[in-house]
């Protein structure tokens, strides 16, 4: 199945442009997610909303950003993924792998094992601070 061909057709031959837009959106939402998490963990009063609303929006925007991130990641993995040179290309793959490992750990903790709540701020921070794959692209 030619995933890249399909995505390229869907984006009118501008797949790279849409990848840039997608990753920019994910980066923006990631920053917003940190603010919302800080709000419902009670360490910030910004943004000015109730703790319940902050938690709800954190979940909604998190899923939206994950959906976009997965599409972008698939277009990387099905397309140019593989080269280990130059270094920034290698780092792109390493950090992309790390992001999905952290996501797997986070969802395993909160949705499957229903434990480790105290670890969530650390996991969320690690996710945000992992050098974003787009930055190494």
């Amino acid at each position: 199945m030619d995933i890249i061909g399909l995505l390229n057709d869907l984006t009118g031959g501008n797949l790279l442009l849409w990848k840039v837009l997608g990753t920019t959106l994910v980066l923006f939402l990631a920053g917003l997610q940190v603010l919302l998490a800080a709000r419902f963990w009670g360490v910030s009063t910004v943004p000015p909303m109730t703790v319940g609303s902050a938690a709800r929006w954190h979940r909604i925007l998190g899923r939206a950003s994950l959906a976009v991130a997965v599409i972008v990641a698939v277009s990387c993995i099905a397309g140019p993924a593989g080269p280990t040179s130059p270094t920034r290309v290698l780092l792109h793959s390493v950090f992309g792998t790390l992001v999905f490992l952290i996501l797997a750990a986070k969802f395993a903790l909160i949705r499957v094992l229903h434990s480790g709540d105290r670890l969530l701020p650390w996991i969320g921070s690690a996710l945000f601070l992992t050098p974003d794959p787009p930055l190494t692209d």
Partner: protein
Amino acid sequence: MDGRRVLWVGVVVFFLAMAVAGPAAMVRANRPAGGQAEAAAADGGGGSVVKMQNIAFVPATLTVERGTEVVFENLDTAPHTVTAKTPGGVDSGTLNTGKSFRLVVDQPLDYVCTIHPSMTGKILLSG
């Protein structure tokens, strides 16, 4: 196990699969078989087409007869260029995904992608 937990287990497995896909692609791209195919193409088995894929020109070295038309096809998701290393030489301009560039070769060419400088290639003349 209730239905929702099964769903979330699926999500976790999906994320793990995405995490494994990157290293798997790296292993696949660096298998010796790929190098052998490239070498075969460089010996003339690949015809007069140079593909741009996985941030590389394939074959990296192509030997053709003088006057042969070589087609450069961008099969990557990233844009590339075919630019002579010597100033004022061949320059395809930016080739977006799916675009190609045709060049009638009348002299050897050392070229590079100016967007990804690690991408280099050579065209040699036979005979």
